[in-house]
């Protein structure tokens, strides 16, 4: 049997998660264009390969072969560092997301999760807030007023919405009592009990989190930082070739990560209804080993988690091609005078419900 050192399996999981998130981000560009087309009664890119499935490859070739442009007076080191940082932070946050329950074969048992840390949620928050540095540095290093304006918008928008996001998350933490994403997931489905997904206990908190997630990933209706009608291209005005590609790419990786976080926090993560019943039925009356039944449940749960993630990604794109962009003052008013008070009210309600034992 294969023997790997203590973190061997985890490093394989991390590598797979890395590859999968890049693959998903690649095909998000394709999905975005096809979904945009379908919502506008068109068919989208269909020339490269069957159904246009090679379109991301064609885009990558285009990006890599374009001229590498450095604006005059730009800080070259920071100009290159900006997109790298954006990409690194986008990829880092997926390390703590539990993509599946435990898998065991032979003497090996491991979780389908990069690293299990008891501050998982804090890690995601910390890394996501680092992401604004990528935008800010890129915008500043471009030596262009449009880039700088876009970067400042991005920074202020992300900071404002992170507050409401954190506050809406506190209500979840009050219920779960832990920051570990795996713990939060497992708590949403307890064998033999009617344990519900957090969306049932936290509908208001979910809506606040969703709106903030849109703002955090700079997606429409909150894509002010790259508002092309006012700011040319926003913070990536001066970027070309694959450096621009990295910025666009990191946006899609962010969408993937934030969709995964929302699925884990509010939609039960890798849990699905009647999973324990199914496992016990397989083990008792179908003659399966308990371990292999558990492996099957884990695999199904992972597939379903990705289903939830894809549903969220679709929702992101659906929203993008439906809603117009907010004005900047409307954006700030929504963040500071509506979402933050709402999140505080949500905390109060949750606290009251916990105190009176309605939810636990």
């Amino acid at each position, binding site marked *: 049997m294969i023997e790997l050192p203590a973190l061997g399996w985890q490093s394989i999981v991390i590598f797979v998660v890395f590859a999968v998130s890049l693959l998903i981000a690649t095909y998000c560009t394709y999905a975005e264009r096809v*979904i945009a*087309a*379908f*919502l*506008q*009664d*068109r*068919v989208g890119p*269909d020339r490269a390969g069957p159904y246009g499935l090679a379109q991301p490859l064609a885009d990558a070739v285009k990006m890599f072969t374009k001229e590498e442009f450095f604006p005059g007076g730009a800080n070259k080191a920071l100009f290159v560092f900006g997109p790298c940082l954006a990409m690194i932070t986008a990829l880092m946050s997926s390390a703590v997301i539990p993509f599946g329950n435990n898998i065991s074969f032979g003497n090996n048992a491991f979780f389908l999760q990069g690293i299990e840390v008891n501050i998982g949620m804090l890690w995601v928050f910390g890394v996501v807030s680092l992401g604004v540095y990528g935008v800010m540095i890129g915008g500043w290093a471009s030596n262009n007023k449009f880039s700088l304006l876009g970067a400042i918008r991005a920074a202020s928008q992300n900071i404002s919405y992170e507050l409401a996001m954190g506050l809406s998350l506190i209500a979840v933490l009050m219920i779960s009592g832990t920051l570990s994403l795996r713990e939060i997931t497992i708590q949403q489905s307890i064998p033999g009990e009617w344990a519900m997904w957090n969306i049932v206990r936290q509908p208001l908190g979910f*809506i606040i989190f969703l709106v903030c997630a849109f703002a955090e990933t700079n997606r429409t209706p909150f894509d002010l930082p790259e508002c092309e009608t006012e700011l040319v291209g926003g913070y990536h005005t001066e970027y070309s070739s694959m450096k621009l590609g990295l910025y666009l790419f990191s946006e899609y990786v962010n969408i993937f990560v934030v969709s995964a976080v929302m699925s884990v926090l509010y939609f039960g993560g890798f849990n699905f209804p009647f999973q324990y019943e199914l496992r016990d039925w397989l083990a008792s009356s179908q003659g399966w080993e308990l371990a292999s039944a558990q492996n099957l449940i884990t695999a199904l749960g992972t597939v379903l988690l990705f289903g939830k993630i894809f549903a969220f990604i679709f929702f992101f794109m*659906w*929203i993008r*091609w*439906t*809603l117009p962009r907010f004005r900047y003052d409307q954006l700030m008013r929504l963040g500071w005078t509506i979402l933050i008070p709402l999140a505080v009210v949500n905390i109060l309600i949750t606290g009251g419900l916990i105190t009176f034992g309605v939810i636990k």
Partner: protein
Amino acid sequence: MQPLTNRAKKLEKKPMTLAERAYLPAIFQGLSITMRHFFMKKATVRYPEEVRPFSPIFRGLHVLKRDEQGRERCTACGLCAVACPAEAITMVAGERKKGEEGLYREEKYAISYEVNMLRCIFCGLCEEACPKAAVYLQADKMAPPRFERDEFIYGKDRLVEPVDPTKRSVRGIQLTPEQAAALSNKMAQQPA
């Protein structure tokens, strides 16, 4: 003032209601509209693979017709060139020699006949002017895009119908054999 139509809608600037200020109902309305469009029939025609159906009276690429015995009908009278408002047609007339009776119907024929497709406005006046029913604008064929300007000057090699009658269409239009078969099937099914 008297309104011109009765469709004028009076707008009042009222403070927004709570539902309007909460954005969410309007957002769901918008989402349902876009989702409806997601499942609608797509307007895209995947040209070259699909071609939008032409109108039966569409005036496309010219064709120089042959008669029942496969002889060229055109006698190079020049009426089409005179009628042409865009001055797209030029021709050189020649005399039929002995032994060429199977090629040309009249004693005079066109040695060269050129249509400049960049000048042509596809008005169909040449078709109306022709006394010999020799020139027609095909209903299902267009002058395709090309890279060089001189490729748009169509000579007799590209304008005259093929000699083989099976390669011609029943409607006097150059069709592919499959298209011609499909068309004749369709016409056989519909009693005239």
